[in-house]
């Protein structure tokens, strides 16, 4: 049996994900991830094939670290996001790349704006998802964000979820 996924469904899924983030509904966002999910943002001078086990990434979360990231962001002591910034995740160029027995690979382009304290920063890049259906509902098994930037300049940090 091959995995079922239409472009409509893929688009609706990543658009909904973006909306959860911009609404700061972090629990709903976390619910989109499978139990053994990973969320990675490699450093900008790395090749797309680089692995977090032997290369320095900005973010290399397994499910545990991802949950902790969300827990942290809900605290007032997550100083970089207190008071919370305003964000807008624009997602486009959604394409289904590959469909296997158990999963689909979907790619998209993103531009995310973060405004706080009189400054608006932009994060630009592409996303690669591995989507699965552990119990029927679509879930993220892998989310990779590849920044199309030469570093985090001037953004200085990835304190939000991309």
């Amino acid at each position, binding site marked *: 049996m091959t995995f079922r996924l239409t472009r409509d469904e893929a688009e609706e899924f990543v658009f909904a994900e973006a909306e959860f983030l911009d609404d700061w509904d972090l629990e709903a966002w976390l619910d989109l991830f499978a139990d053994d999910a990973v969320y990675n*943002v*490699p*450093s*900008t*001078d*790395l090749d797309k094939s*680089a692995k*977090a*086990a*032997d*290369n*320095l*990434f*900005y*973010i*290399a979360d397994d499910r*545990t*670290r991802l949950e*902790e*990231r969300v*827990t*942290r962001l809900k*605290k007032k*002591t*997550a*100083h*970089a*996001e207190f008071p919370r910034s305003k964000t807008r995740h624009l997602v486009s160029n959604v394409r289904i790349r590959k469909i296997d027995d158990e999963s689909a690979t979907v790619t998209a382009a993103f531009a995310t704006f973060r405004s706080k*304290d009189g*400054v608006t920063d932009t994060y630009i890049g592409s996303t690669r998802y591995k989507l699965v259906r552990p119990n029927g509902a679509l879930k993220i098994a892998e989310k990779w964000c590849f920044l199309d930037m*030469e*570093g*985090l*300049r*001037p*953004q*200085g*940090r*990835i*304190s939000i979820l991309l």
Partner: protein
Amino acid sequence: MSGTNGAYVRIDEDLKTFKVSRRAFVDPAVTDAEYREIFDKCWLYLGHESELDQPNDFLTRTVARRNILFARQADGEFRAYLNTCPHRGASVCRERSGSAKSFQCMYHGWVFGNDGRLKHLPGEDSYGENFRESGGGDLTPVPKLDNCAGFWFVCFDPDGPSLDDYLGAAMPYIELLSLHSKHGMEIVGGTQEYAIRSNWKLLTENSVDGYHAESTHATYLDYLMNVSGGLIKQPLVGRAFDLGNGHAVLEYKAPWGRTIAQWIPMWGEEVKAQLEDVKAELVERLGPDKADRIAHYNRNLLIFPNLIVNDIMAITVRTYYPDAPDFMNVNAWALAPRREVDWARQYRLYNFLEFLGPGGFATPDDVEAMEKCQMGYRNLKEARWNDISKGIGKAEPSFDDEAQMRAFWTEWQSRISRADGFGLAA
């Protein structure tokens, strides 16, 4: 008021206070003076030997506003040039890194060997007979280049001190970093290149600030407590040392894991046994004292003015320069033992990105703190001074006092006061 007072640093020995003028963080004239009197005169970090692992390897990097081409010749010798063509100035090498015996300028096609010599001159017969041989067409080397235990430094002052004299008492700390493995050390792939909208000196202070962890990094400490076995029962305890010439170090014990070689329960019993072997090898090779320091002590090392090597839950090598009084560019690398076993390398890098990285659970909050300090300096006209007095007068300042910052500011004040117009009261 008694004590040594410069224009920007005020010490009151009766009140036991050490104050720094906030003008030092906002005045463009100060940034200019810093380039003239500090960055153009001090030894500055260029790169680690492991980044040019093989003969003919090269990399390009910005150091104190200059473009530097750092290369190894075919004979393995390390060289560094100003990356500008002697003909009209174009950047000769436009790649970040690679391997090359020669570099061709894209403009008129002059070709330089990695020994810096002009090798090929298109239309050579239209030049004077000895144009090439005279050396006037060669790449310009940096005035001074030297290394300490594999850390390469440049100095743009031809009359500056030797690197050994400059580093002085800080040298043994750099050497200690090279001893974690008998195979040597290496920079891991992946550079964290970011910026902070604050004055660069705030990052010098922040990188050796043992006082801020509990409040700034509350969520990081929560995280370590949440993941079971993330910490051992080792209280934070240790010392700050003024190493002279503006260099300083904190050396202290801490409850977090070190893949060389402080075990935490989260890593499991199998790793525990392996870490005991790592420790035993250190004892055998270096003796019990050095082995204990490498395994169980953390060090936040500041090499004046802007090199930080923090050997904590991972090792970061970090350097940064101001673009403006309220903006700096930061480059940070992870240093690790060569041929480190897979699990150790992995935990080390996870430790790094959780705490030291701008996408982690701590550094974004440091960035926030520094940017909020910079914002606070908008009130300069009424609120003029920073306080750096913690632990003043103690014979043995603690790691969470501010003696290390006073060491930095004392050197900074003495150098900046040599700039024209900067010997005056602020």
